[in-house]
C-alpha cells in the first residue's frame, strides 16, 4: 500500500467520523437529561411508575444494544405494517436506540449519585425555605454532578466505541466505512486507522472529562 491509498482511507474514514461524532453528540445531549427523567421515575414514590422503570432498565441493560437497534429499526414495519421509506429513518433509528439505551444506564448512575447525598442536605434546604425545585437545582444537582462524573466518563467512553454498532443498520459511520474498504481492498489498514480514530476520540473525551472533574475538585 502506498501513501496515496492510505491518505484515501484516512479521508473516507474522516468523513465517516462526522456521522460517528453526530451519533455520539446527539446521544449524549439527549440521553443525559432523559436519564434524569428516568432516574426520577425510578425513584418515584409511585410504586407502579418505579416498577415500570425498573423493568425497563433491566431490559435495556440485559439485552444487546445491537439487538435493540434492530428492534427499533424494524418495529414500525414488522409490528405496525408501516413502510418507512424515509431516507433518514436508519439514522433516526440509531439515535432512538442509543438514546433510550444510554438513558437507562445514566438513570442508574444518577440514582446512585442522588442516593449518596445525605438527607441532611435536604433538611438544611428545607429549614432555609428553599422550594423543592430550588433544592434540586441549587443544592442537590451540583453535588450529584460531581459525584457521578467518573461513572459518566466511563459510559461516555463506552459510547464512543458503541457508535460502531450503527453498522448493523448500514448507517455510514466510520466503522461501516472501514469494513467496506477492507472488503474491497483486502487490506487491514482501514481497521488500524479506525482504531487510531477511536483511540484519539476517546483520549479527547477523557481529557475533557478530566478537566471538568478538576474544575469541580474545589471542594469534597
Amino acid at each position: 500500500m502506498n501513501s496515496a491509498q492510505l491518505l484515501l482511507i484516512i479521508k473516507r474514514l474522516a468523513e465517516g467520523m462526522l456521522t460517528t461524532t453526530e451519533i455520539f453528540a446527539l446521544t449524549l445531549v439527549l440521553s443525559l437529561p432523559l436519564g434524569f427523567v428516568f432516574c426520577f421515575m425510578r425513584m418515584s414514590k409511585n410504586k407502579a411508575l418505579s416498577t415500570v422503570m425498573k423493568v425497563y432498565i433491566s431490559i435495556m441493560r440485559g439485552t444487546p444494544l445491537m439487538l435493540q437497534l434492530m428492534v427499533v429499526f424494524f418495529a414500525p414495519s414488522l409490528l405496525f405494517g408501516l413502510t418507512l421509506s424515509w431516507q433518514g429513518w436508519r439514522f433516526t433509528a440509531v439515535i432512538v436506540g442509543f438514546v433510550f439505551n444510554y438513558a437507562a444506564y445514566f438513570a442508574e448512575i444518577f440514582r446512585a449519585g442522588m442516593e449518596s447525598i445525605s438527607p441532611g442536605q435536604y433538611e438544611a434546604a428545607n429549614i432555609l425555605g428553599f422550594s423543592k425545585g430550588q433544592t434540586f437545582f441549587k443544592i442537590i444537582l451540583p453535588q450529584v454532578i460531581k459525584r457521578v462524573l467518573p461513572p459518566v466518563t466511563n459510559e461516555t467512553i463506552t459510547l464512543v466505541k458503541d457508535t460502531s454498532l450503527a453498522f448493523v443498520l448500514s448507517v455510514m459511520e466510520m466503522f461501516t466505512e472501514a469494513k467496506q474498504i477492507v472488503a474491497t481492498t483486502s487490506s487491514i489498514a482501514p481497521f488500524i486507522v479506525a482504531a487510531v480514530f477511536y483511540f484519539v476520540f476517546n483520549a479527547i473525551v477523557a481529557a475533557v472529562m478530566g478537566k471538568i472533574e478538576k474544575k469541580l475538585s474545589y471542594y469534597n
Partner: protein
Amino acid sequence: MSKVLSMKNIRKSFADNEVLKDISLEVEKGEVVAIIGPSGSGKSTFLRCATRLETIDSGEIYYGDECMARTDEKSGVIYADKAQMKRINKKFSLVFQNFNLFPHMSVMKNITSSPISVFGVPKAQAEKTAMSLLERMGLEDKAKAYPCELSGGQQQRVSIARALALNPEILFFDEPTSALDPELTGEILKVIRGLAKDKMTMVIVTHEMSFARDVADKIIFMDDGYVVEQGDAKELINNPKSDRLKAFLSRFEN
C-alpha cells in the same frame, strides 16, 4: 411578654412506636430553653416537629400568632399553606448536629443563598449581613473558604451564622456540639452564650448539663416521650425532684 413559640399536646409516632406522647412547650421572647434527656427520649424528634422536618400526628404549633399546624377533630392535622409557611419559615431556624453546610458553596454563599434566592434580599445587603455575622463568629477571614477547609467548630459557627442570616425570632439547636471534640465544643458554647446575652430566643437540645444550667432560663427533662420534669434551670439541675432525673443527672457527675 410575648410568646414566640407555642406547641400544645404534640403527638408523634413512627409506625407503632410513639415517640412524643402529648408534649407541650411555650417559649417567651428572649427565653433560653434547654431540653435534656437520654438518647431516644424524643428530644430531637420534638425539635424536628417544631421545624417541620417531621409532621405531627396531633397537637398544635404556633409561631407568634401564625398557626403552622393545628388539629381539627374531623380532618386531623392541618398545616399552614405555602404562602403562610414561607412567612413562618422566616421566623425560625435550626442548627444541626452535623452542620449540614452545603459543601459546594463558599462560606459566604452558604449564608446568603437563602436570603437572596428564597426571600429576595438584595445581594449587597445579604453579603453585608453575612460579613457582620461572620465577624460576630470570629470568622471574618473565612468568607471565601469552602466548608471542607474549616474545622468542625468553624463549620458549626458558619452554620450558626447561616441560621441567623434571616434574623429569626427563635433559633433551635439540635445537639450542636455532639459532633465536636471537647476543645471545639467550648467555642460553640461560647457563641451560644453570646447569643443568650444578646437576648436571642433559643431552644437547645443538649447533653452539656453544666452549660444548660448556666445558659438556660428553663430546662425540660424528657424521657420516653414524656416531659418528666421542667422548671427553672438551676433549680432543676441542683434539686431534681423525680427519680428519673436524679438517675439521669447522676451519670453526668464524676
